Structure formats: structure tokens, C-alpha cells
């Protein structure tokens, strides 16, 4: 099924101005305490006005990338900031989008840190020609293709849930490139499929119906932020992408030897493997 691109506006986030308190007068008139000054992101069309994929300055840019993965056409919605250091690559979880990490542009601790984040196929503003092809291996290939297109060779990984699983397989398949890995409840074991295994425990032949019921079960879950998460699911996820993602997550969590893969990711800086040097902090 064709995934129609969604028409979100681009620049919606703001960052503090260099001089601290400058602000759009129109905003100041309705919000006297406002400190926001200018868009944190600038929008660019496909191809943009950048040269060699490198943007000028340190302001994040949002950009749509025309890519093909396994013969499937994608328009991948990205936000990135370039710089001299190795970038952090953020991979969001199922039901989330790249905006989970947009606030890095406002975090002083990451002021000089380049980053790249994008909406996975089936999610957010990224459009995908064939949603039925989406699976975790497809998301890994998408990540590899995005990184190649962006000219990123070495990177720090941050991945959440589905994105954590994608990041793990990305780092495992190409161990010479990952510099560090923050895994935010990415799948490592069968017990991690509390969302995705619902494709098995609550099956339905109708993707829309399954997704409706999934959202309702999630909304009633007695865990922090699940109701908030459930409220945005319909906006952020294409129902026809859910089955392939969930079934592959369950399969990999049950049979993919994820824990050994995670524990054996090599440490580049000291030429060891992490499980040989438990205190390695390079």
C-alpha cells in the first residue's frame, strides 16, 4: 500500500537566542515571559541548498531524503546538525518519531554535538512506497542507507525500543563504525515484547482493527506515559506498517540471540570486547 506523505509544518521548535532573551514581538505580546527567539530548525526541500551534504553553521536542518531500500522508494524525513565531532544518531521507537530527540538542539551539554535523527518508514513524516515491506531488517537497511547518504562513517548510537533493536543490529553488522550505544529499553530478550507480542496474543486479520484495539489496550496500561503515548499513535504510525514491525520484533527477540550480540559489541577505542573488560569506559 502506498503511504501518502503527510503535510506537517517543518520549523516548529525554538531555541534560545545567543543573547538570551530576544523574542518575536508577536509572541512576546501574548506570552510576556517568552524566551524563544527563532526556529531551531530550518526546512530544506529535497536536495536543499547544501553542498556535499554539509550544512553551514550549527542550526539543525530538516530535510527529506529520496532513498531506495530493497527496491522500495522512501522519502525519509530527517533532522540533523553537522559539526566536527562524531554525530549522535537517534533511532526512535515504535509509535514515536524523530521529535523525541529534537530537544537535543536546546540542551547545553550537547551544544557542539552533531546529530541526525529521522522518522523510520511507516512513522511520522517519512513516506514509504510499500508499507508491507517494513520489518526490523528493513529498518536496519534504511539506517545504513540514511547514514551513507548523510556521509556519516562513525557515530554514537541512541536507540529506543524498536530503534534500540535496530541500532543493535546496525552496530552488530558493521562493528567498525559505532562509537558508543545508549540503548533505551531496546529489545534484548523475549520478555521485551510487551507491545509487539500483541500481534501474536491478540491477532486480527484486519490491520486497522488490530491497531485500534492495540491503542486502547495501551491507553489503559498502568505505566507512566502510556496514555500519552497511546493518544498520539494514530497520528504517528501507519496501521499497515504495524504487522511487519511487530512480527519481526518478536521473531528477533525470541530467536535473534540479541543479548550475546549486545554484550559482544566490540570496543573500538581499546581493541577489546566489552565483555572482557567490564569496566572499560573509553
Amino acid at each position, binding site marked *: 500500500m502506498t503511504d501518502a506523505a503527510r503535510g506537517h509544518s517543518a520549523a516548529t521548535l525554538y531555541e534560545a537566542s545567543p543573547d538570551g532573551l530576544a523574542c518575536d514581538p508577536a509572541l512576546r505580546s501574548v506570552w510576556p515571559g517568552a524566551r524563544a527567539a527563532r526556529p531551531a530548525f530550518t526546512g530544506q526541500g529535497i536536495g536543499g541548498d547544501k553542498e556535499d551534504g554539509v550544512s553551514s553553521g550549527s542550526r539543525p536542518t530538516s530535510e527529506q531524503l529520496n532513498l531506495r531500500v530493497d527496491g522500495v522508494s522512501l522519502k525519509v524525513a530527517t533532522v540533523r546538525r553537522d559539526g566536527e*565531532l*562524531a554525530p*549522535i544518531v537517534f533511532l526512535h*521507537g515504535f509509535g*514515536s518519531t524523530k521529535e*523525541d*530527540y529534537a*530537544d*537535543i538542539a536546546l*540542551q547545553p*551539554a*550537547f551544544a557542539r*554535538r552533531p546529530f541526525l535523527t529521522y522518522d523510520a518508514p511507516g512513522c511520522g513524516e517519512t513516506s514509504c512506497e510499500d508499507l508491507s515491506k517494513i520489518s526490523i531488517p528493513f529498518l536496519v537497511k534504511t539506517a545504513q542507507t540514511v547514514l551513507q547518504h548523510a556521509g556519516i562513517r562513525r557515530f*554514537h548510537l*541512541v536507540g*529506543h*525500543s524498536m530503534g534500540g533493536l535496530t541500532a543493535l543490529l546496525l*552496530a552488530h553488522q558493521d*562493528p567498525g563504525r*559505532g*562509537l*558508543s*550505544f*545508549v*540503548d*533505551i*529499553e531496546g529489545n*534484548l*530478550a523475549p*520478555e*521485551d515484547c*510487551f*507491545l509487539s507480542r500483541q500481534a501474536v496474543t491478540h491477532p486480527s486479520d484486519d490491520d486497522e482493527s488490530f491497531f485500534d484495539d492495540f491503542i486502547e489496550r495501551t491507553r489503559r496500561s498502568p*505505566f*507512566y*506515559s*502510556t496514555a*500519552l*503515548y497511546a493518544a498520539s499513535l494514530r497520528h504517528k504510525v501507519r496501521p499497515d506498517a504495524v504487522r511487519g514491525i511487530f512480527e519481526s520484533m518478536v521473531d528477533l527477540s525470541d530467536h535473534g540471540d540479541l*543479548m550475546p550480540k*549486545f*554484550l559482544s*559489541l*566490540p*570496543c*573500538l*577505542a581499546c581493541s577489546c570486547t*566489552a*565483555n572482557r*573488560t*567490564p*569496566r*572499560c*569506559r*573509553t
Partner: protein
Amino acid sequence: MPRMFMYGEQNSSLSYLTKLSANGVELAEIPHSAHFPMYSNPVAMWERIAEFHSRGKPD
């Protein structure tokens, strides 16, 4: 590879946390959070990621 495993305090019963720690993975438990620290406690999430990055010299 320096690795951190971040989880919400409501998921502190994950069976493999001890195994991760014993194998050199830094654990980051996020208070007032379950599976979505970026929604429940983003301040703590960013602080732990920043601290983790500040201690390494991986560039």
C-alpha cells in the same frame, strides 16, 4: 563499545539487568518512568545521556 542500558523504574524487574551490569554495561534507571523516559522524565534522560558521553573519549 561503551554501552548504557536505560530503563524506567517501573521496569526495574527486567530479568537481565544484573547480567548487563556484570558484563560492563552501564545501567541508567530513570525515576518516574516506564518504557518512555523521553515522555515521563526527559530531564533525567538527557542528563544521563550527557553524563555518559562526557565520560568517554570516543571521538
